[in-house]
Structures are given as C-alpha cells and as structure tokens.
C-alpha cells in the first residue's frame, strides 16, 4: 500500500466507513493473527486479535503515519498479546517438531559433508504450476500445520507478509539468531515436502 493509498484509507476509517474497515480486516488480520499466535499460542490468539482491533479503533485518531499502517497494527497486536499474558509469558520454544516429510537432515550428507542424496530436479519451476496441483497444496498445508506455533508464525511473517527479520525480532521479542533458526528449519521442511511430492507424485 502506498503512502497515498494509506492516507485515503485512513480518512475513510476515521469517518467510520464499514467498507474501509472491511478492507483493513481483510488485508491485515492474517498478519495480526500470526503475531498473536506466536506470542500467546493458538488457543488465545483470537481474543488477542479482538483486543488489538478495539485498541486500533480507539487509537486511530492518534496514528501519525510515521510508520506504515501494517507496522502500527502489528505493534498494537504484539502489545495486546504481551499485556494479556504478561504473567505467564511463554519461553521461546525452539522445539523442532517432526514434519510429515521430514527435513533436509544430516542423513542427506556423507561424512565429508558432500551430498549423499542430492536434491532431485523438480518437474515444475513456478509456484503457480506447483500450486495448480490440489494434492500438493493440501500436502503443503499439512506441513505448515505440523510446525510449532512460533516456527509457523515466523515463516508466515517472513514469507507471506514480507517482514524484515529485525521487525519479526522486535514484534515477537526474540533474538535475531532465534528467528534465523526458526525460519531455516521451517523452510527445510517445506523444501522436503515439495521434494517428496515431486519425486513420488503423492503426499
């Protein structure tokens, strides 16, 4: 969204136009949920997102446009999550849960560090071609659901929402090295899923 588009949307929001709020919710709620999910987990994410929306409406008049609307919304969401769960803030769990098709692990390499089982060439070379196969899409969704809440959120915020690593650190209050580890592990699982599907034609 350009600064100009954002300014126009903001004007309509301030007037209380329902359609403007519809656009806001449809555009940003996914990212807000990912932030809430990372901090408080799936069970409480929805109520945090609700809290955040109410805070957004209350504070809309004070939004100065020094940051992008998206950054502002995500910061409010992170704050709502942290306020609600200040007492029982979870520790950063770097747990690596098993994924349906595994990862690219040590077993793929020889003791000298060369590939033992090198990646095969995939048949498709565009996301559209890959996703046109319903079964592959479902398979990928299955893998994403197998990720830990934090790993999944970091992947969503980086790959789907296009946030910088530093922004993710700040929102989720986790170190850069942890973000890098979480992201890398999640990507390897996605890679392994696509590779498995391309090799076997099934999930």
């Amino acid at each position, binding site marked *: 969204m350009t600064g100009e588009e954002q300014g126009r949307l903001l004007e309509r*929001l*301030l*007037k*209380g*136009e*329902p*359609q*403007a*709020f*519809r656009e*806001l*919710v*449809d555009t940003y*709620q*996914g990212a807000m949920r990912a932030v809430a999910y990372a901090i408080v987990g799936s069970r409480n994410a929805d109520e945090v997102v609700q809290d955040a*929306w*109410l805070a*957004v*409406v*209350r504070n*809309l*008049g004070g939004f100065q446009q020094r940051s992008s609307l998206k950054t502002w919304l995500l910061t409010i969401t992170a704050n709502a999550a942290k306020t609600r769960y200040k007492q029982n803030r979870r520790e950063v769990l770097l747990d690596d849960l098993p994924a349906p098709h595994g990862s*690219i692990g*040590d077993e793929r*390499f020889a003791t*000298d*560090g*060369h*590939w033992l089982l*090198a*990646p095969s*060439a*995939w048949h498709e*070379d*565009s*996301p*559209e071609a*890959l*996703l046109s196969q319903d079964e592959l*899409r479902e398979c*990928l*969704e299955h893998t*994403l659901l197998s990720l830990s809440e934090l790993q999944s959120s970091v*992947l969503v915020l*980086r*790959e*789907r929402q296009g946030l910088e*690593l530093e922004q993710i650190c700040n929102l989720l209050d986790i170190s*850069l090295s942890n973000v*890098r580890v979480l*992201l*890398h592990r999640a*990507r390897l699982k*996605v*890679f392994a899923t*696509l*590779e498995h599907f391309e090799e076997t034609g099934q999930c």
Partner: protein
Amino acid sequence: MLTCKELVARSSDFIDEQLNLGERLMVRQHLLFCRNCRRFIKQMQLARATVRAMPQVPEPGSEALAERLARERQGANKP
C-alpha cells in the same frame, strides 16, 4: 572451501542477506562449482515463492467484525 552440508546450513542466512562479506563469498564460490547446491538454492527460492503464493484463507467473520469496528469508530466520533 565450504562443504555442501555447510552450505545448506547457511542457505537461509544467504537468502536473507544475514552473512558477512567473507561468508557470502564462500557461499558464492561453492555455488560456482557445485551444481547440486545451485539446484538446492534455486529450489529453496521456489519453495519460498510457493509458500508466498498459497491462496489466502478467507477471514471468517470479517464482515461482522468490520461492521462492529465501524460502529465503535462512529461512536467515538460523536461529541
């Protein structure tokens, strides 16, 4: 010279530009000579683009929520 295993371990940092100059050069040098790792990086990028392109799940109840937020905002606008 990096091994393939070391390259894979650094692949996300390479993609996200988190490596320092020396490490970046080592990765580039390895990629110059290693077809398997070039394929790995290329397909890793394709995997990322695929995650990005996955259809967004429609937000449940977004219409009702938007109505509610708009009403709240209109209420706040009243003197």
